[in-house]
């Protein structure tokens, strides 16, 4: 008996099984509804972001006459754009701030996390398309696939097949492929519609997500057939698979994350900000404290220009000193923020190791990377915003250096709309597919290893399959 025959037989059998259509269509409809809701939410959020971005920029552009430094403190805001795929997997977006305030001297953290404003929930994550695809589709696979081998055994057909000389290898392989084909039949149209709509905006990322999902479905289908081949009773197979599903989706990733948080803590806000304050005030090793650094700089300024007082300098002394001070502060901020990001990426790495036993945890990393809602994309955005902060505050101060002489009062208003409008706009270009794949390649690789291991397991089990 060839594997092709088994595939056709299994696909036909599953198509005749009411569960495939009942549960599969219910899931497909739920997926489409979630996708529609998610897309609607994402579009609304993008509209809101664009409105706020334009309004904040317009406020900046039309401040009127101001002291340039005080205007710089009024600042600009950076808002992270959402990709179309964020409608599928919102990732960490609900737990990160929505707006970054860009101002001189200080590097801020993003403010206003949506989770803080959310209505009370169970605390198990939202019911979004990612949950339907990554958690509920495997459940459907288990429900459909748990009895594929056990039922043959319980009804005695396995013994008959073996008596007819059918080899077990093609049999289990056919069952696996048949299950995949049946799933493709019922979920394929919903997935294709969803991805087709999203691909218009997300391009190859949507296609890559579809490919990753197919790999994921294949892993769960192989697991279902393997457990079915290992168990003697259909009910036992279902219960074992159910336990594995609960462990993979809820227990392993959540315990893993909590363990990492406890074993590799990041500093508290109080410690983080006070370390930055300390390093700016007292200086990094070998740099001297802020007062010493400033007096050395002042002395050099005075001697370079052959004057005795800052007031006599032929350019804006305050702005020149601020440029020097802020360059140092930026260096300190970069150092501490880099450390914080490194700590968070190390946590992610450790989590990856701890949760490699869960295909669900792996695919979550892949899907959030492709949707641009993972940690790596967050850092990319915040780093870009920081570079822009440095640029616009430097430009304001450089103008101030040129436009004034000596020491000026912070109360005097000598800059106007022309200066504000000359600042380059904040344009954020999200990274492409290559960046997402680099962020998630190890998860994808482990997922491939999972499939290879399960298929090898199926092969080994097939050789020992007893009726």
């Amino acid at each position, binding site marked *: 008996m060839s594997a092709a025959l088994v595939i056709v037989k299994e696909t036909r059998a599953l198509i005749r099984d009411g569960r495939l259509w009942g549960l599969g269509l219910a899931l497909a409809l739920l997926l489409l509804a979630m996708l529609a809701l998610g897309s609607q939410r994402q579009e609304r959020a993008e509209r809101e972001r664009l409105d706020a971005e334009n309004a904040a920029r317009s406020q900046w552009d039309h401040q009127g006459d101001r002291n340039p430094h005080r205007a710089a403190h009024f600042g600009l805001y950076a808002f992270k754009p959402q990709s179309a795929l964020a409608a599928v997997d919102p990732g960490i977006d609900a737990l990160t701030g929505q707006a970054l305030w860009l101002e001189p001297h200080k590097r801020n953290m993003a403010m206003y996390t949506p989770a803080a404003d959310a209505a009370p929930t*169970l605390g*198990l994550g939202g019911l979004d398309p990612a949950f339907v695809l990554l958690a509920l589709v495997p459940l459907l696979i288990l429900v459909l696939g748990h009895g594929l081998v056990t039922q043959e055994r319980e009804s005695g057909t396995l013994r008959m097949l073996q008596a007819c000389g059918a080899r077990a290898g093609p049999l289990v392989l056919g069952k696996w492929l048949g299950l995949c084909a049946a799933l493709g039949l019922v979920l394929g149209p919903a997935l294709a519609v969803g991805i087709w709509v999203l691909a218009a905006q997300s391009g190859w990322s949507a296609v890559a997500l579809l490919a990753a999902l197919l790999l994921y479905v294949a892993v769960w289908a192989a697991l279902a057939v393997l457990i079915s081949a290992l168990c003697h009773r259909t009910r036992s197979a279902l219960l074992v698979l159910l336990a594995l599903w609960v462990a993979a989706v809820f227990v392993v990733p959540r315990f893993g994350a909590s363990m990492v948080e406890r074993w590799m803590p990041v500093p508290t*806000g109080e410690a983080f900000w006070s370390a930055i304050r300390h390093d700016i005030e007292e200086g990094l090793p070998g740099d001297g404290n802020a007062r010493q650094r400033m007096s050395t700089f002042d002395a050099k300024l005075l001697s370079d220009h052959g004057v005795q007082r800052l007031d006599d300098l032929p350019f804006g002394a305050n702005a020149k000193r601020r440029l020097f001070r802020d360059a140092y502060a930026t260096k300190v901020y970069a150092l501490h923020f880099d450390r914080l990001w490194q700590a968070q990426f190390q946590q992610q790495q450790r*989590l990856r190791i701890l949760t490699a036993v869960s295909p669900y945890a792996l695919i979550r990393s892949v899907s959030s990377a492709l949707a641009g809602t993972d940690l790596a994309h967050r850092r990319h955005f915040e780093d870009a915003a920081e570079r822009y902060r440095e640029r616009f505050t430097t430009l304001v101060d450089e103008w101030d250096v040129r436009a004034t002489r000596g020491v000026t009062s912070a109360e005097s208003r000598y800059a106007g709309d022309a200066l504000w409008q000359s600042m380059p706009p904040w344009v954020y270009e999200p990274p492409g597919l290559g960046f997402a794949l680099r962020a998630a390649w190890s998860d994808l690789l482990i997922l491939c290893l999972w499939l290879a291991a399960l298929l090898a397991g199926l092969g080994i089990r097939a050789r020992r399959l007893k009726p």
Partner: protein
Amino acid sequence: MSALPSLNLWRAEGLRLRRQPLAWRALGALLAVLLAASTWAGLEARARHEAGVAHEVRQAERLREALQQFADAPPGPATAVATYQLGRGDLGLTRMAVGDGLALGVQRLKQLPTALKASLDSRHVDARSSGPLLNPLLTDTGLPDVPAVVALLLPLVALVLCTGLLQEEGEQGRLGLLRLQSRRGMGAWLVAALGWRWLALCVVAVLGTLPALLLGPGDPAVAGPWLTALLAFCALWVLLGGLLSLVSLSSAMALLAALGLWLLLTFIVPAALVWAAQREAPMPSRLAAIVAIRDAQQHSEDHEAQLARAWFDQHPDVAAHLPATWPASFVVRVLDQEQRLRPLLHRFDDSRARQAAFVERWAWLSPGLALVLHGERLAGVDTASHLRYLREVEAFENRWRDFLVPHVMNRSGITAEQLTGLPRFSGLPLRD
């Protein structure tokens, strides 16, 4: 025929359950997960309590340092600036008070601002939280609170134990025999079977979650209302499993129906309630609020001189120093911004309160959600408690500013003696 089982029936069903290895494995796995989750939560709650005590000690130290700093400071502009810096500093830090059952809601705290600072600056654009810095990835995927773990897993085990009881007997050809043997009818038999399962689940749930409350810092008496809710929750799911046993389905289909019921009540109904709550009380846009905040900042910048004059008019006891310069000019601007923005910012709290009220009103549709909300109330981290904290911080900030602003505006600063009357935040019922 009485539906109450006889003693022999109780014994027989107890024996049958004892001999089901699958049931013991499911119960054992549930106990292991609950024990781990609740131990974790208990330790986290204890750590938070200790951090709270350390915070109190640090605040006392900061106050001592401030008293020393101002002891020899002569009145004048420099002391006024120092007073301003003190008013923006960490002395104004607060911590949200929590309930005795903190261990039942310690994870929820991570998503809420619970360490706000009263300040002479605007708190609403402060992007430098003193609270814990959290990796959003770990917060997103980390352990939920103990009630959520119970709400997630206990129903599954209850349904595995209770669904298909009758159907299996029928499929294995024992139903007729059972009918013959059950002198008091099948009802009594089902009551005995479900009763034992309920008891087993209760023991596991109680043993599994008690460490959270015992290890946590609160009064163990909070265990009473928690355990009552837990027993009712177990009873409900056992009952649902029992009802599914009575439906004329095969045992496999009954199990699938149970799975569907679990998905519906644990995921779909809560998500639908949240969706409906958002429609009932839409949350204003935080991004639009930023634009409003900037408008208020612009307005106060444009009217700085008038604002300072108005402030001195309202405080004739403070000698007017006009035109106001930094930091006095900044302080009046912040006060003006606050006055303009509070109604807008209260709209967020109102929406949250209305959404929470909506979800609470309909939570009975999802037993798991109802259990989680009960746990949050016992932990003191429910929406109402958090909104109360926000109001307390606001009131404290008013007192803070009323006390410090005159000392900034008078260009003399505060004295050490006056500093002893610095307002304290009173919302922290910590026990040692």
